[in-house]
């Protein structure tokens, strides 16, 4: 079943088209990422789902029901806010029980449910504290418990890991993923971190300028970027100019080629090209070697076990034809 459906949805703020004719269908139980730079419209899409924004035009359905004009408090959708938005004057337990309280659930019952939700996010016994007494990671778990205690059919997460440090972020990525698996709820999250989107999501929508540039599985988006923007934003792919692509024997269009798909030297069945080394940098497991070939700059990942060519040296590089992806003419 389709959890969230967007049909030609637009949201304009004055002359700014924050969301521009977006079509989207998110399946029930899916872990869905909306990825893009700031101002790309991904957060506005999330706010349209939550009900904080209304579309300028187009149609939104949540589990088959029309969502336009339905206020946030009548949607079976909950949000984990970027700044967590915990209520500072309430205890942690009261924060988590808030959604049940305003729905009129009895005190004993809602406090029990809140305790269970806190246990689920590994914060049992924290109920009497105030939000100000918790660390960022703990506050995030509370925000998660506060949303999940309402048993939403869709959970929206706005940059859920943005405020956490790297180690905590990696840990929370795994926890979110396993939580989503065990609960079976549709998770939709917004992020500008492509690594986060690739590692957590079942499918990714890459946003730019209010439009979806590409929608697909992490592998599709990473390996076969449809547009130059996607190739550039997701990972750091080489975007090859049309004349260079044509000189290699392909059609006359932009193409993407992942640095890790390029090797030093020739090989059977591989397309060779030569270039002059302009920069090298050590990345731990590999060296990133940038060469200038026929006016194009191409980066290649050379395993750290191989010798690094010197700057100014002319080297031969090669790749498999199937790893080169020709892209749409649009930027």
């Amino acid at each position, binding site marked *: 079943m389709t959890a969230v459906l967007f049909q030609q949805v637009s949201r304009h703020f004055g002359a700014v088209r924050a969301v521009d004719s977006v079509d989207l269908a998110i399946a029930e139980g899916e872990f869905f990422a909306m990825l893009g730079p700031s101002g790309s419209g991904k957060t506005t899409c999330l706010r349209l789902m*939550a*009900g*904080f924004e209304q579309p300028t035009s187009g149609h939104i359905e949540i589990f088959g029901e029309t969502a336009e004009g339905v*206020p*946030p*408090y009548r949607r079976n*959708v*909950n*949000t984990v*806010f*970027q*700044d967590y*938005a*915990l*209520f*500072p*004057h309430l205890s942690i337990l009261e924060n988590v029980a*808030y*959604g049940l*309280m*305003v*729905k009129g659930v009895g005190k004993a019952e809602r406090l029990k449910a809140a305790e269970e939700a806190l246990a689920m996010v590994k914060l049992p016994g924290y109920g009497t504290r*105030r*939000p*100000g007494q918790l660390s960022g990671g703990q506050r995030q778990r509370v925000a998660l418990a*506060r*949303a999940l205690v*309402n048993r939403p059919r869709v959970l929206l997460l706005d940059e859920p890991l943005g405020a956490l440090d790297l180690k905590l972020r990696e840990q929370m990525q795994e926890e979110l993923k396993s939580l989503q698996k065990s609960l079976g709820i549709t998770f939709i999250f917004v992020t500008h971190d492509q690594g986060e989107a690739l590692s957590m999501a079942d499918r990714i929508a890459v946003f730019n300028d209010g439009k979806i540039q590409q929608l697909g599985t992490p592998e599709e988006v990473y390996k076969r970027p449809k547009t130059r923007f996607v190739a550039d934003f997701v990972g750091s792919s080489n975007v090859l100019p049309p004349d260079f692509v044509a000189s290699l024997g392909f059609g006359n269009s932009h193409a993407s080629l992942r640095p890790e798909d390029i090797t030093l030297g020739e090989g059977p069945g591989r397309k060779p090209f030569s270039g002059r080394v302009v920069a090298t940098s050590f990345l731990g497991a590999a060296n990133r070697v940038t060469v200038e070939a026929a006016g194009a700059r191409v980066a290649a990942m050379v395993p750290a076990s191989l010798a690094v060519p010197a700057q100014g040296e002319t080297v031969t590089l090669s790749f498999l034809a199937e790893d080169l992806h020709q892209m749409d003419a649009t930027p």
Partner: protein
Amino acid sequence: MRSDKNTSAPLGLKIAAGAGLAFLHLPILLIFLYAFTTEEKSYQFPPPGYTLQWFAVTWNRPDVWAAMGLSVRVAAISTAIALVLGTLCAAAVSRTKFFGRETISLLVILPIALPGIITGIALRSAFSFAEIPFSFWTIVLGHATFCVVVVYNNAVARFRRVSGSLIEASMDLGADSFQTFRYIILPNIGTALLAGGMLAFALSFDEVIVTTFTAGQQSTLPIWMLEELVRPRQRPVTNVVAMVVVLLTFLPILGAYYLTRDGDQVAGAGK
């Protein structure tokens, strides 16, 4: 880390500070002292004798009660108006963006920056121009102009600290607008409103200038006191009333001070 804890100020500075405080507060003590004097026509020092009779005399003077009652009613109603309008205005200015927002903010604050006499003359000419007869309500309107400012200033500062996503979070969790106001907004701005309301009440209670321009035949307590000082009869009654006024206005201001101080912790706890 408090290296300055044991260093004490020079003696001269201590004396100067003491003298300054004495100059500020001794006159108030004198007012209290003369409430107990046996001499009723002039303020002779030291008082020739002490008595509690003026409390009884004051209690039995209907004009005192009339003036006091009017002042309390005016202060209460102006404060109530100010609480509603000041909060709404603060919410509009801090919660939304619209053209001329800064201007509106300035215009709301202006009445308290203007000398009271200007506000008074402006209101008086406006009332006569609109042919509104002077009454209880003209006094209330006059006082509300500056009471709104006090409430607004307190509320707007607090609203700025209440993150906008708190309201969205409440709505997201299923609370409608009334529930959100009741459970989220009010607890977060409540102490600021109480403090603003107390200050507004105190300001209104001892206001003279605007009142003289907007009152008809009625006298509020401060105006009654001014009139009373001109008459050389039962003067200590004025002092008794003054004591009561000091207590009535001082306590709310003290309360407001403590409330806003604690409010910092309440509203800042989530950050």
